[in-house]
């Protein structure tokens, strides 16, 4: 039974369906599901430790920033169980774990850049010993005054990269000439990834200076590169393996490397295996988060609420280094339009440096923050013009003759208008909006709000060279298939989908395909598993490898059985030659005896993308993924508490490779986005220390925050217009932004208190933020 029938109302058609010989498109379970529920799926900390494994704990200073005067580690060295203490001076090669632009030392050298930056590490017999010892250091810092928030960063005038801007038309003139001009500011909070498995790595020293790493990373190739550079050995001496992650969400794209480096350094110095598994609080303090923003916007509309020009200034808090902020904030710009046409636009960004942990990738990669501004503008127009916000949204969508984005790409695959209309009808938007108005007219203390918002999300890495990967496929002589590819499994079901795609090529069940752990010595030189592109890239590379083997088998069968190649098909575990059918295993054995290779690599690089950042021209995305969400909330205007009553999601995944996995991404992404915009609040104190560094103070959504009335459906698609793998679409990130409807519904609920006035609601909409907005309207 498709899972949808269990209450989500989702329309999962079990495609790949009756009589179909392959699992492509079928709602099969995650390939590790059984091991997950049995507790036998191994994560880094579960791997049986080689004898003598040391445990490494990081140590940091009390100070937030400033010059390191002295580091006294005597007490640390004397502590029970301590085997080695590591400092920057122990690093033989480069003290650097930045993904690109530098500025992220593995161990602080002469300067502390943020509170929690690792200064030294202790390797000890047990984790408890290592952690206890790490607290005994005396670190003397000539403390500077930290710039903590984005204002302070702007004020101090430091930017980690030069400002960057998209401009189309003459926005300022267009706005000035508009019948209505709006302006405002919005603060958007950051977000902690809170992957359930903290950062972890195990390094095992091997012969000839080789280092073998098990790392919970989205980017094994970069771990390999950084460890090799740190140890000053050729990349060929380092192998990185990742079986699976207990969640990544971007937090293990660049920022898994430091912990692998520390483990490798300890292993290098002691000659013993060494493991780093960060304690949750350390993890939250020491690793970067979603960028928080301060945004100022100004825009004009006509009397119908259609945008005439948009002028937005995004200030992003990047923290102490560049990390991935170039691409993250670019993506904010690429998505500042969401699904709306801006006839004239200026989209300006500053990447503000602060003395805080370096912010990093997080599902959506800057896109959500850009899109929130677009939705805020829609709400603002509707409130000021006293229109239904959905009417305003529809009027502003891309459409014929209005299809060029602010960065010059033509939107060719725009299904947003149809998708919105479908959801509007299916969720009974109009009637519910009327009911809510009636409820609010009578309610004294509680207010309801509803909002329907679209998502349009560009698919491809905007850094062109990352859009490539490889795969390695082996057909074994018993007919089983082993696949390795450059992507990593973090729960998104990538391995399951790749197995489905490969199984389809050979006409066997997906269960016949075993995806092995991601390993840099099997498929080298890969990009990160990120940008939602894991399946687009890796399933395509695996498909190509599988096709190579298949075409060899076809040639062989044609020769052996004297049939036409075109008549040979694969299905039901058999190879059908027209005259007879042989089990795949038998043909594989024949191929072996005939000395035909049963192994192949496959390579894929995304076509058509031509973006050139320097000139801000070209096409950054292969296609867009679309979706829409309608959320209804109740707000307590006395306390600011808020409850989500009902959610309807409709999302476009092209032709689904696995509807169950896609629905899982959609629901999970939505709830994660809802957390970002509601309960998840990062609080730093004036000295730049994170106060919410544990789940006791940082609140991701719990089960009861998800409404019982949660309806999810896949858009009935005829398939991606671009030639992606089986015409599917990427699904990792786009659904997160469906949660913008929650924020917008809260805005609606508050706005009913004072018609015509825009609630100054900032994100996240905690009870306190909501109450502040309520009180602002009451003044």
């Amino acid at each position: 039974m498709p899972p949808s029938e269990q209450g989500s109302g989702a329309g999962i058609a079990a495609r790949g369906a009756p009589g179909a010989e392959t699992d492509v498109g079928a709602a099969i379970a995650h390939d590790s599901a059984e091991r997950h529920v049995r507790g036998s799926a191994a994560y880094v900390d579960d791997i049986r430790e080689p004898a003598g494994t040391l445990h490494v704990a990081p140590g940091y200073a009390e100070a937030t920033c400033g010059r390191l005067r002295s580091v006294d580690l005597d007490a640390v060295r004397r502590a029970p169980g301590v085997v080695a203490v590591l400092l920057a001076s122990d690093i033989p090669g480069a003290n650097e774990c930045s993904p690109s632009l530098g500025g992220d030392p593995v161990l602080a050298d002469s300067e502390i850049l943020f509170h929690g930056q690792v200064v030294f590490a202790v390797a000890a017999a047990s984790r408890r010993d290592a952690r206890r010892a790490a607290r005994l250091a005396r670190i003397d810092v000539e403390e500077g005054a930290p710039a903590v928030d984005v204002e302070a960063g702007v004020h101090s005038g430091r930017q980690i990269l030069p400002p960057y801007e998209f401009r189309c038309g003459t926005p300022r003139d267009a706005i000035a000439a508009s019948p209505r001009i709006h302006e405002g500011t919005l603060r958007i909070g950051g977000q902690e990834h809170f992957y359930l498995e903290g950062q972890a790595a195990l390094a095992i020293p091997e012969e000839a200076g080789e280092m073998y790493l098990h790392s919970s990373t989205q980017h094994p190739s970069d771990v390999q590169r950084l460890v090799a550079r740190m140890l000053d050995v050729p990349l060929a001496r380092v192998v990185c393996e990742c079986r699976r992650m207990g969640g990544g969400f971007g937090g293990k794209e660049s920022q898994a490397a430091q912990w692998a480096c520390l483990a490798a350094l300890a292993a290098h110095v002691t000659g013993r295996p060494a493991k780093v598994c960060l304690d949750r609080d350390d993890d939250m303090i020491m690793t970067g988060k979603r960028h928080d923003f301060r945004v100022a916007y100004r825009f004009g509309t006509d009397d119908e609420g259609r945008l005439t020009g948009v002028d937005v200034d995004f200030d992003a808090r990047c923290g102490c280094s560049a990390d991935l902020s170039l691409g993250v904030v670019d993506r904010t710009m690429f998505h500042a339009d969401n699904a709306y046409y801006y006839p004239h636009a200026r989209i300006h960004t500053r990447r503000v440096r602060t003395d805080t942990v370096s912010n990093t990738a997080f599902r959506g990669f800057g896109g959500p923050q850009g899109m929130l501004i677009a939705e805020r503008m829609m709400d603002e127009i509707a409130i000021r013009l006293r229109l239904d916000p959905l009417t305003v949204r529809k009027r502003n969508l891309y459409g014929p003759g209005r299809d060029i984005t602010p960065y010059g790409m033509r939107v060719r695959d725009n299904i947003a208008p149809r998708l919105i209309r479908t959801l509007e009808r299916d969720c009974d938007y109009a009637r519910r909006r009327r009911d809510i108005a009636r409820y609010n007219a009578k309610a004294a203390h509680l207010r309801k709000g509803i909002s329907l918002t679209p998502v349009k999300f560009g698919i491809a890495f905007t850094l062109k060279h990352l859009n490539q990967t490889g795969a390695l496929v082996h057909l074994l002589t018993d007919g089983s298939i082993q696949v390795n590819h450059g992507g990593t499994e973090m729960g998104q079901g990538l391995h399951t989908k790749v197995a489905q795609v490969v199984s389809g090529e050979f006409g066997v069940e997906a269960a016949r395909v075993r995806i092995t752990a991601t390993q840099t010595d099997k498929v080298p030189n890969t990009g990160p598993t990120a940008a939602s592109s894991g399946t687009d890239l890796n399933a395509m590379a695996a498909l190509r490898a599988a096709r190579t083997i298949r075409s060899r088998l076809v040639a062989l069968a044609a020769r052996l059985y004297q049939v036409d190649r075109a008549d040979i098909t694969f299905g039901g575990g058999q190879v059908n030659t027209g005259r007879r059918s042989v089990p795949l295993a038998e043909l594989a054995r024949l191929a072996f005896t005939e000395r035909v290779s049963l192994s192949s690599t496959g390579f894929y690089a995304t076509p058509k993308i031509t973006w050139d950042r320097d000139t801000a021209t070209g096409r950054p995305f292969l296609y867009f993924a679309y979706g829409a969400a309608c959320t209804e909330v109740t707000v307590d205007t006395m306390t600011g508490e808020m409850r989500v009553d009902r959610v309807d999601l409709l999302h476009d995944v092209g032709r689904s490779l696995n509807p169950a996995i896609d629905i899982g991404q959609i629901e999970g992404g939505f709830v994660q986005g809802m957390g970002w915009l509601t309960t998840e609040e990062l609080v730093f104190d004036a000295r730049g220390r994170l106060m919410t560094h544990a789940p006791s103070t940082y609140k991701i959504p719990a089960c009861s925050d998800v409404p019982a009335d949660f309806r999810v459906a896949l858009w009935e698609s005829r398939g991606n217009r671009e030639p992606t793998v089986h015409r599917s679409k990427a699904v990792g990130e786009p659904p997160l932004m469906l949660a913008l409807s929650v924020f917008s519904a809260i805005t609606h609920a508050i706005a009913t208190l004072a018609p015509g006035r825009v609630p100054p609601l900032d994100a996240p909409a905690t009870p306190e933020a909501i109450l502040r907005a309520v009180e602002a309207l009451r003044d």
Partner: protein
Amino acid sequence: MPRTCIRFLRRGEVVELRDVEPDETLLEYLRLREGSMGTKEGCAEGDCGACTVVLGRRDGDRVRYEPVNACIYLLGMVDGRELVTVEDLSAPGEALHPVQAALIDHHGSQCGFCTPGFVMSLFALYHQGRAADRAGVNDWLAGNLCRCTGYRPIADAALASCTGRADDAFSRRSARTAAALASVDGEDDLFVGDEERFFAAPRSAASLSDLYLRHPDATLVTGATDVALWITKQLRRLPRVIHLGRVRELLRIDREGATLVLGAAVSYADAEEALGAVHPDIAEVLRRLGSKQIRAAGSVGGNVANGSPIGDTPPPLIALGAELELRRGDEVRRLALEDFFVDYGRQDRRPGEFVSRLFVPRLEPGQHFSCHKISKRFDQDISALLGAFRLSVSAGRVVDARIAFGGMAATPRRALRCEAALTGLRLRSPEAWRPAQDALDRDFRPIDDMRASATYRAGVAKALLAKALLEAGGTPRSETRVVGAEAERA
């Protein structure tokens, strides 16, 4: 002679351990000693549920299964219980347990790291003997965080598999297990270690008071839900630990006339029914105070004794006029609960003295009671503030008020000025409530922290008072609350 080893039931066998560190956690035992890697560490502070295991305890000739957080459960506290972990539900290669199968059928795992914890919470729910409904599932899963799925498939799996009819290897052998537990959990005192380092779990109040008099510096725990964080987060060593969870007298729930008498070691879970009978809002406070895991381990007595300014049970107990009994050696004294909290981190408790019982009076006719908790997340979150109100109303006027707040001062405290200002107030005239609301500004000077600003706390305290007055005046809770409205008093 006390017993010198802990004893528990594991996979049908009795395990006896003599080498138990007083501050060793159950999670350390499982992962480091047993090598059972199915149970995960996600936070080591009792907030994520990745480490959830299930403990069976004897309940007559049956076994009662409760989930706990292994990361903050002391190994010694497992004494007398059956310990069940994810590996035990189905043998490798054999059929899955119904909750495991349901999770797969509903696509309830993505990264899988949270999954063993969910499996164990569902396993305990499966054995509750009642079909789960959606609200019940939310409550059962409040202590299990999942960052991937958005919970819907997990909740669906719970509804599909936890139908109230347990039929698994555990239910089939429950009579045998109960018998085995009876022999494991003796009537003797437990003392593992020596005078310098020990884990002790006395069986009687007399043994407890003797032991504590000899070791007034020992750490007392019932569920260790707070103390264990000293170990896992502050990395403190606790050389001497006395566990109250076996002390017979402290586990009793009695009545003295109209007064409920609650032993200090009665778990939240066990107290739920009795306290909920005083008023459903207290049941809701208990429900939101912590997850099932926390409530199975922690106790009201511990919450009170701990003296935290943000403990959730003191404000309603103070508003009800509860009293506390303390014992030291053979000396017993009783005091009003509000007098116990002297200052931040300081309670009226002498060395060697322990909280033994709580006396909770009933509500009289004409008394309206309500509690309001404010937190960023509804479930399993620490209060920014919590207000509890007992208003005696006669002829539409407040004739007497007892009000207590948590999160508004260094201790849970009464709002005496506000109480005074309320006397004589008409419930029907909200315009006249202002002085009582403003009195709260003189009662409290709240702080700014990561949970809320002082301004928010001060403002919302007034709003909560208004809610209490509205509700006392008959406004239905569906108009005053976004959650907990179901707890309407019949």
